[in-house]
């Protein structure tokens, strides 16, 4: 790998991956409760525009991030009410949510392309980021990046080792049984859906406020769909979602660096490699049917209608 600095590559891949990771970890929890929300892309882009608009107008990136979360959550609530209370089809509703989000964001963002958002300060002092090797990798990022990793750890802990996690999984595996035990299936699912919306919205706000520092129509460019693929790739396991996101971001960051280093590989192949690798991994993962089926929440995508 002549001419490619591994440290800057790692720093870049972490930044590239974070929006996708945030959206994926949110969707993972949603799917763990047995709900398939295909509206991730729509919630992300709405979070991106609202985060940007609020950050520009208030001068506070923190308020921007909160606005991104709130708008993602509001959009997910539409999905929640439609699918959980009015029992609409989850796939169709999710797709509609994506289309709605893309249109709504374009409308909300009119006049904002080219505005400059306020700078986001890093949590660690600049001196720490100058420590050789580990400095830039561990201490040179913005707060949201650390938050995303903490979020993965928290989701892993809550799902695997707490009563709340047990309830979430019970609802996702067999909603009738959970209902019979007295758990409020719809309420739990609604809360998970809102959590997923907040994560997707935060991912979008990170994209517009930190990574690109600009707002453009359709700027998520399919990141929400990558997040959905990552959840399957991860077999609904939080740490694997992190691995998958960093792998995807790594290939994206690497292909640009291979080009910049003048390494003689056809550019077309490099440019599509992140997507090809995602597809290949998905095919390998799902070729073993029994294993995928074992990990997928049993009630995923099924309509729950409380009887009796």
């Amino acid at each position, binding site marked *: 790998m002549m001419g490619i600095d591994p440290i800057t590559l790692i720093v870049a891949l972490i930044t590239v991956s974070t929006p996708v990771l945030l959206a994926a970890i949110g969707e993972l929890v949603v799917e763990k409760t047995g709900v398939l929300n295909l509206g991730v892309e729509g919630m992300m882009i709405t979070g991106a525009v609202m985060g940007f608009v609020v950050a520009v107008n208030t001068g506070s990136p923190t308020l921007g991030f909160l606005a991104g979360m709130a708008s993602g959550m509001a959009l997910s609530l539409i999905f929640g009410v439609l699918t959980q209370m009015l029992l609409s089809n989850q796939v169709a509703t999710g797709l509609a949510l994506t289309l709605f989000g893309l249109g709504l964001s374009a*409308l909300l963002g009119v006049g904002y392309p080219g505005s400059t958002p306020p700078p986001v300060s890093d949590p660690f002092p600049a001196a720490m980021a100058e420590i050789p090797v580990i400095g830039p990798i561990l201490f040179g990022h913005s707060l949201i990046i650390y938050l995303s990793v903490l979020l993965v750890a928290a989701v892993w802990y809550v799902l695997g080792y707490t009563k709340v996690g047990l309830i979430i999984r019970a609802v996702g595996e067999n909603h009738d049984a959970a209902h019979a035990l007295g758990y409020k299936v719809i309420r739990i699912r609604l809360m998970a859906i809102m959590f997923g919306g907040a994560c997707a919205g935060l991912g979008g706000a990170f*994209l517009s406020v930190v*990574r*690109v520092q600009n707002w*453009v*129509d359709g700027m998520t*460019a399919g990141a929400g769909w990558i997040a959905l693929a990552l959840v399957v790739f991860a077999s609904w396991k939080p740490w694997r979602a992190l691995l998958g996101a960093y792998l995807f971001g790594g290939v994206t*960051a690497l292909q640009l660096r291979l080009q910049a*280093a003048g390494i003689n590989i056809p550019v077309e192949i490099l*440019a599509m490699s992140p997507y090809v690798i995602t597809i290949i991994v998905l095919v390998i993962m799902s070729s073993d049917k029994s294993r995928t089926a074992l990990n997928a929440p049993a009630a995923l995508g099924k309509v729950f209608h409380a009887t009796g």
Partner: protein
Amino acid sequence: MKTLTKIMAVSALSLGLAAPALAQDDPTQVGFIYVGSIGDLGWTYEHDRARLAVEEHFGDAVETSYVENVPEGADAERVLTQMALSGADLIFTTSFGYMDPTNAVAERFPNVRFEHATGYRRDHPNVSTYSARFYEGRAVMGHIAGHMTESNIVGYIASFPIPEVIRGINSAFIHAREVNPDVEFRIVWAYTWFDPAVEADAAQALIDQGADVIMQHTDSTAPMTVLAEAGAIGFGQASDMYQFAPAPRVSAIIDDWAPYYIARTQAVMDGTWESTDTWDGIGPGMVGIGEMTDAIPEEVRASAQAMVEAIAAGDYHPFTGPLNRQDGSAWLAEGEVADDGTLAGMNFYVEGITGDVPN
């Protein structure tokens, strides 16, 4: 949203048509279709500024309308048909990918004049083409880049491997090498005209590879943000991008379509419009050079300005021999100047650039 914009624009067109139909003198209707959003601060932004200049110049005698974010392909044909049906007299189609739709619609509406930017097909007498010699601006930016780089690595964010982009890379490289024999170009193909996330990542990748001067042939300001953080410099593309001056934006290539749009609208009003092929550069003012800031040393500013003036006066052509192709074979002999046909179809690098042009 895209559909909404279209509906709004089309209804605006038809309303505009309905009202003045009662008046004695119908205002001339001029339509524009844009590939991006008018807020991109680059390519589409400049076309829309020129549209506003047309409105200001003619006042009530002209009514303009536009549709933004029109995909290149079948959608463009539909939007163009709508515009023509709504009574447009003159339509500017402002992206290379509108070439086939423009000619297809022109055939069906022989009384409507069409002006297609950066294309070469004029199948019907009511189609003109126009473009700007952006490579003249790139020569000046390359001259500055060659002087300014300390790492001797200039990064280049390219969009698609089409002649216009390859011409720009060659022009910039020739003039950077001329003043700095050690300079190297690192080229990243982004395969997009406008995707801020990709453009920012590409800029970061080039900086990580040691580039301290970045040129871009993509339209967003996202690379500028990255350059500012890294302390590198760059150039405004299509538009001035002056909000990033004095650094990282040290100068800019500016497209100025207003004089052309005003002249062509006037021609329609006078009844003198005919199919033409226009390719103008710095001299006629279609390509402008943005203010060179203090970040550039004074003597470099002076030599760059001298080059601007020589090009404008027609004394200097950026592709003047001796020049070889990348493989070392001779292209232009001493003092020979490239002809427009070769430039228009340029699909090769000049000697000294490493890497291959993607197919």
